[in-house]
């Protein structure tokens, strides 16, 4: 548990995701050993050979980074016609278990109910980098579509051989191959007889265009919904193994603190309690969580504290020279900002900021770990099962073949569950105890020892003509990230920079990453410019915008909202639009501000969204609504407060998240572009709500707010 907050080279923003610095570091030259052990198993693909006996124990992924091309690695048809589909993606509430099942059913021509997805199991599913970046629909749905189409064609081939028939007269439907002339039928299961399909998936098998979808493109209900409404679904925190103990870890009193000494006597004297000490790591195991909590509280420890930055000093700290400005391909220049500013009739320079916020998934990090004969199995809620497998292998000096990570459908993540802290802790305790151990983080641990959405500072400098034409745009983001940093508005002279900062808190991915911060700054600034030239904010945006897809969502949202209609007294309307990860969003919001108390209420919000072809309209709407609600929290009141290395609000009673009474009347307009491939949709719809609310607050009160959260204490100071 050392050097938790030593960030030297600890994090690296990637194109799609931020990587949180590791909570645990292991200074053992492990990588070299891996090279010898981690070769994996190569799946041979023999032309002309389509079957192998299904042993049920074969690994479905070959080398670590390889995407297997063998059909059987992805899909298995049982003799009873039950179809198992294997994907390394995980279900954390995005409802991809359902949408991926729909895609398979569509392409394979099999009933939805006959298909079961095996997800996020490093032993059973092909390697997958992780469930993030809104890549499931564009990548995994496409892959499973290819796999299913190939399987369907193979089944047609097999039936043609059985019947000695022309394959052109055969059709696949409802889990069977049907001979259109003779009306003969053969179940899929009868054709494959439960054997493994070893055929290679062709590069581009004929797949069904979205316009002809009968199962995909429609609103199937959550496939395992019944297990949730009856309480039967087993989340990680619900798993119980024979002989299992409950674990707790001793946490430092503040960030950066190191352990000096401990007195374990009292804890060790408690009946049935085991105490584990391994360097800075101290934990306990007990037959119940109640007892484990008591035991960990009984440990006396001395800590050496180190000075830490507090919330108040945050933004100065983020802007301090963070080394050289780094060009990561996201720095962008066009024309000359200097000339653009000279050509402008109005110039505007403003600074925007966003606070650290917490994912606060309702299911905290949790893991159940079991060692058997040197092999480790861990059930844990993570978005990166193969990543966590690697973390565990490294931590325990075993090859990855000896580590299995299983991710049951998990109680949400929002980008917050990329790492394997709880998995490592549970496995450490389980190894020491010689018994399976379950470890569930408390809410306070979750609020303190997970990683946060980065705080950030954004400076925008712009120039504009009085007719509303943008001439210059300079945009600097400090620390929060580069996602969606570029403007889609037409500006001939631009400079756009991302400056990595020194973050005092451990930070990492969060739904839509910095696209929220960058859209907040950009769309607020655009609103300020519109007012500077007395133009309607919608008209102003459209004047500077050629992108037809962004124009379309702006126009559709405005229409559904009734943009331009004057709201009542004390009310105001705002809008914002944007693009990220292949999808487009525009959000209009109406707010009401109580004149005397300054209390703010978002009355209604309308979003128009376009992500290519829609795979499941109801679930897509659900994601967009959910993103708007979650975004409303970060927009209005969510912020992590910290001082002297402590989070001051690590509880739901102190950290406010949106509740029923915060919810505006929400409307979602979907634009279904069946002519375009589907893009992911779990993240982008979050980016519009904050600037739309901020702009609406300005319209209602004349007060311009440039920091998220906009109304941290619930009410606005009115002039």
């Amino acid at each position, binding site marked *: 548990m050392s050097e938790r907050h030593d960030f030297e080279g600890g994090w690296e923003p990637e194109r799609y995701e931020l990587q949180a610095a590791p909570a645990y570091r292991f200074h053992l030259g492990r990588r070299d050993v891996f090279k010898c052990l981690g070769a994996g198993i190569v799946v041979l693909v023999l032309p002309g050979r389509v079957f192998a006996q299904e042993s049920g124990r074969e690994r479905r992924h070959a080398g670590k980074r390889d995407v297997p091309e063998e059909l059987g690695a992805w899909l298995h048809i049982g003799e009873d016609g039950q179809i198992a589909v294997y994907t390394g993606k995980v279900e*954390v*509430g*995005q*409802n991809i278990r359902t949408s991926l099942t729909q895609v398979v059913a569509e392409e394979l021509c099999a009933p939805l109910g006959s298909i079961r997805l095996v997800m996020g199991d490093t032993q059973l599913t092909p390697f997958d980098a992780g469930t993030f970046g809104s890549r499931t629909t564009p990548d995994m749905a496409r892959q499973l579509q290819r796999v299913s189409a190939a399987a369907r064609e193979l089944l047609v081939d097999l039936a043609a051989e059985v019947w000695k028939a022309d394959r052109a007269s055969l059709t696949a439907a409802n889990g069977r191959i049907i001979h259109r002339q003779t009306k003969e039928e053969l179940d899929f299961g009868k054709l494959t007889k439960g054997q493994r399909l070893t055929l290679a998936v062709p590069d581009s098998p004929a797949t069904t265009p979205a316009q002809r979808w009968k199962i995909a493109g429609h*609103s199937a*209900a*959550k496939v395992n*919904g*019944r297990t*949730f*409404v*009856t*309480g*039967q*679904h*087993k*989340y990680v*925190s*619900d798993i*119980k193994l024979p002989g299992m103990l*409950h674990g707790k870890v001793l946490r430092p009193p503040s960030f950066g603190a190191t352990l000096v000494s401990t007195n374990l006597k009292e804890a060790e004297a408690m009946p049935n309690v085991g105490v584990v000490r391994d360097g800075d790591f101290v934990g306990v195991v007990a037959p*119940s*969580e*109640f007892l484990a909590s008591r035991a960990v509280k009984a440990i006396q420890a001395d800590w050496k504290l180190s000075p830490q930055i507090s919330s108040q000093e945050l933004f100065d700290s983020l802007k301090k020279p963070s080394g050289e400005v780094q060009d990561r391909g996201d720095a962008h220049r066009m024309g000359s900002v200097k000339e653009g500013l000279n050509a402008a009739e109005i110039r505007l320079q403003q600074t925007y900021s966003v606070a650290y916020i917490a994912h*606060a*998934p*309702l*299911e*905290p990090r949790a893991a159940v770990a079991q060692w058997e004969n040197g092999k480790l199995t861990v059930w844990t809620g993570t978005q990166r099962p193969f990543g966590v497998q690697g973390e565990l292998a490294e931590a325990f000096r075993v090859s990855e073949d000896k580590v299995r990570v299983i991710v049951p*459908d*998990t*109680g*949400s993540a*929002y980008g917050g569950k990329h790492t394997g802290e709880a998995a490592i802790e549970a496995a450490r305790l389980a190894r020491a105890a010689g018994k399976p151990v379950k470890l*569930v983080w*408390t*809410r306070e641990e979750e609020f303190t020892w997970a990683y946060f959405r980065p705080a950030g500072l954004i400076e925008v400098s712009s120039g504009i003509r009085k007719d509303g034409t943008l001439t210059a745009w300079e945009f600097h983001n400090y620390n929060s990230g580069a996602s969606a940093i570029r403007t889609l508005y037409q500006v001939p002279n631009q400079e756009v920079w991302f400056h990595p900062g020194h973050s005092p808190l451990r930070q990492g991915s969060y739904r839509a990453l910095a696209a929220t911060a960058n859209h907040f700054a950009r769309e607020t600034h655009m609103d300020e410019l519109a007012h500077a030239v007395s133009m309607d904010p919608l008209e102003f945006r459209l004047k500077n915008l050629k992108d037809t897809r962004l124009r379309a969502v702006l126009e559709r949202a405005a229409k559904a909202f009734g943009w331009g209609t004057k709201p009542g007294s004390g009310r105001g309307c705002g809008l914002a639009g944007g693009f990220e990860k292949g999808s487009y969003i525009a959000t209009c919001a109406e707010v009401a501000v109580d004149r005397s108390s300054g209390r703010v209420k978002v009355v209604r919000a309308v979003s128009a969204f376009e992500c290519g072809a829609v795979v499941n309209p*109801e*679930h897509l709407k*659900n*994601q967009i*609504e*959910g*993103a*708007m*609600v*979650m975004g409303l929290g970060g927009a209005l009141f969510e912020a992590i407060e910290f001082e002297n290395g402590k989070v001051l609000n690590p*509880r*739901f*009673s102190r950290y406010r*998240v*949106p*509740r*029923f*009474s915060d*919810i505006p009347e*929400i409307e979602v307009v979907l634009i279904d572009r069946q002519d375009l491939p589907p893009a992911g949709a779990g993240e982008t719809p979050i980016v519009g709500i904050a600037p739309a609310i901020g702009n609406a607050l300005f319209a209602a009160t004349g007060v311009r707010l440039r920091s998220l959260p906009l109304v941290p204490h619930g009410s606005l100071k009115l002039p």
Partner: protein
Amino acid sequence: MPEVTELRINGTKVGVNADAERPLLSVLRDDLDLTGAKYGCGEGQCGACTVLVDGVPTRSCITSVGAVASKQVMTIEGLEQNGKLHPLQEAFLEAGAMQCGYCTSGMILSGVALLRQKPNPTVNEIIRFMEGNICRCGTYPRIIAALSKAAKAMEETGR
């Protein structure tokens, strides 16, 4: 230390052997394998651990098992009757009123209590009653829709 040896859960007497101070949530989940009630915050703020105690929605994470020893406790596992879902469970499925589902048990039990008190709640009454239950995925509009749907279905079928 006083021990609780018997509880009445979902209409059945069950034997336990639990320190009376332990939270009801811990006994339900760890001793009785009734894991439908979830840990979310440990301070009664999120509602994921909600069960009904004599019909009253109760945060089992801050309720000691000793305090409910003589009372009727209902958990999500007891709501389905003879393989038939409660109308609110049906309505949650129809309205797609969940994403990750972790809050669902608590939401449904709070909702069942509301519908018993007010068979036809207005949207404002739903909001006020359900305010203590958090859905971090933000499916609140759908949960409101599910409650309204269930109220209507129950009125029609006389349940």
